[in-house]
């Protein structure tokens, strides 16, 4: 998440918001609403659920703003809250249909190596490709999905990711490795030439 204004820091805004300053609270929401919504969508793969998760995230933030210790960045705290809300939404689904990622050897193999018929630059104009991406990542267990999204897609460090999902650094590396390989193999089924 990026700070869009360099005039006032997040810490200053939080201090003001805690005192009841609505302008400060509004500014926090305006800074982070797009990032929170986009991240929620990347986990939920559904616009309505992403909007719901975003609303719940900011409601939680407002409710517990006084408890924000400032030890981590505001963005890290928001990623933690939105990840938890998305997990709750996922758990409310009647059945679990995640893939179990157990066999390390099966995830990384040198069979069927080929180039792909699409490249990332073509994504915006291709709904079929978006559907393929949605279907592949939907199969990942929640913690693998969140680790992949935080580390690779959002560009957070391994340490920040570890704080957000409450897993050790070796566990983050292992999940990231397996998530990348799983997604690559899933996409390869339809994108190979």
């Amino acid at each position, binding site marked *: 998440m990026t700070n869009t204004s360099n005039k006032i820091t997040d810490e200053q805004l939080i201090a003001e918001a805690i005192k009841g300053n609505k302008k400060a609270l*509004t500014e926090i*929401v305006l800074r982070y609403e797009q990032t929170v919504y*986009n991240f929620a969508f990347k986990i939920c793969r559904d616009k309505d659920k992403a909007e719901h998760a975003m609303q719940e995230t*900011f409601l939680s933030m407002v409710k517990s703003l006084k408890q924000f210790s400032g030890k981590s960045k505001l963005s890290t705290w928001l990623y933690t809250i939105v990840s938890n809300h998305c997990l709750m939404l996922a758990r409310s689904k009647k059945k679990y249909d995640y893939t179990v990622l157990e066999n390390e050897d099966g995830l990384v193999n040198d069979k069927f190596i080929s*180039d792909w018929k699409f490249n990332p630059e073509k994504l915006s104009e291709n709904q079929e490709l978006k559907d393929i991406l949605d279907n592949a990542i939907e199969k990942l267990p929640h913690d693998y999905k969140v680790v992949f999204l935080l580390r*690779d897609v959002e560009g957070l460090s391994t340490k920040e990711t570890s704080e957000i999902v409450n897993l050790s650094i070796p566990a983050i590396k292992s999940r990231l490795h397996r998530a990348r390989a799983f997604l690559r193999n899933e996409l390869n089924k339809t994108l190979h030439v």
Partner: protein
Amino acid sequence: MKKIETTCKLVMNHLCDNLGEDLDSPKCLDIKTHLESCPNCRSFFNTINSTVEFYKKYNVKLDDKGHKELLSILGLNEDDSNDDE
């Protein structure tokens, strides 16, 4: 010390661990050399990279309705913003 042979399998596992991170260690230099001569590993590396890039580029924008609804739920008003610019 016995030199471990750099196989495709080793390269692929290591690439998965280190994609996007510093690739200047002796082990990674071996891997770079292997990559230059192995089309299989190059393809694998490229498709792992593309996987990450696909998900990076797949973004959605919060529309005005969603934005206004959020502010309303929080009891806030756009005009309350601190940004005077």
